[in-house]
C-alpha cells in the first residue's frame, strides 16, 4: 500500500460524493459545487496515475490534460453561475428539479 493509492482513493471518494451531491442537492449552486468536486476527483485520479513509481519518471501528459481540464471547468462553471442567476431572476425560483422549499439563506450572522 503506497501513498499513491491514498490519493487515488481520495479522488474516487470525491467523485462519489460529488455525484451524490449533484443528483441529490436541490439548490443549483450546490449542484454546481458538486460538479466541481467531481471534476476535482477526476483530476486527482489522473495526476496520481501520472506520478512516477521510483524508477519511472513523471508523465507530464496528464498534467497538461488536467490544466486543460481546469480551464474548461472554470469556463463551464462561470456560464452555469450566470445562468443560475438569470433563471432565478426570471422565474423567481432557485430550485431546479426538486421541491421548491427555499434553503436557509441567512448566515448565522455577522
Amino acid at each position, binding site marked *: 500500500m503506497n501513498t499513491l493509492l491514498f490519493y487515488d482513493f481520495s479522488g474516487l471518494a470525491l467523485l462519489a460524493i460529488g455525484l451524490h451531491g449533484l443528483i441529490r442537492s436541490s439548490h443549483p449552486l450546490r449542484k454546481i459545487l458538486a460538479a466541481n468536486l467531481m471534476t476535482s476527483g477526476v483530476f486527482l485520479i489522473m495526476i496520481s496515475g501520472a506520478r512516477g513509481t521510483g524508477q519511472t519518471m513523471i508523465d507530464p501528459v496528464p498534467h497538461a490534460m488536467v490544466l486543460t481540464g481546469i480551464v474548461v471547468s472554470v469556463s463551464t462553471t462561470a456560464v452555469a453561475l450566470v445562468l443560475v442567476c438569470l433563471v432565478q431572476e426570471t422565474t423567481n425560483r432557485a430550485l431546479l428539479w426538486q421541491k421548491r422549499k427555499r434553503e436557509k439563506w441567512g*448566515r*448565522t*450572522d*455577522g
Partner: protein
Amino acid sequence: MSWQYSSAALFLLLAIVAGLGRILRGPTAADSMLAAQLFGTCGVAILLLLARGLEWEVLQDIALVFALLAALAAVAFALRTWGGTER
C-alpha cells in the same frame, strides 16, 4: 527531507484540519472567514517549508500566488459579508 521540516509541515496541516472545525461550527460568518484566511497562511507556510526541505524552488512561486490570491479572497469575503461598495 529532514524530519524538522516534514514534521513542521505536518503540524501546520493538522492546524488546517483543526481550523476546518471552526468553519463548520461558525458560529458567525466572520469565524468561518477568518479560519479560511488561516488556511491561506498555513498553506503558504507549508509551501515554503517544503520548498526549503525539498530544495524545490518552484514551490516559492506557488506560495507567492497563494498569498496574492488569499488577499483577493479576503476582499471578496469582506465585501460580501459586510456590504461593502458593491451593491
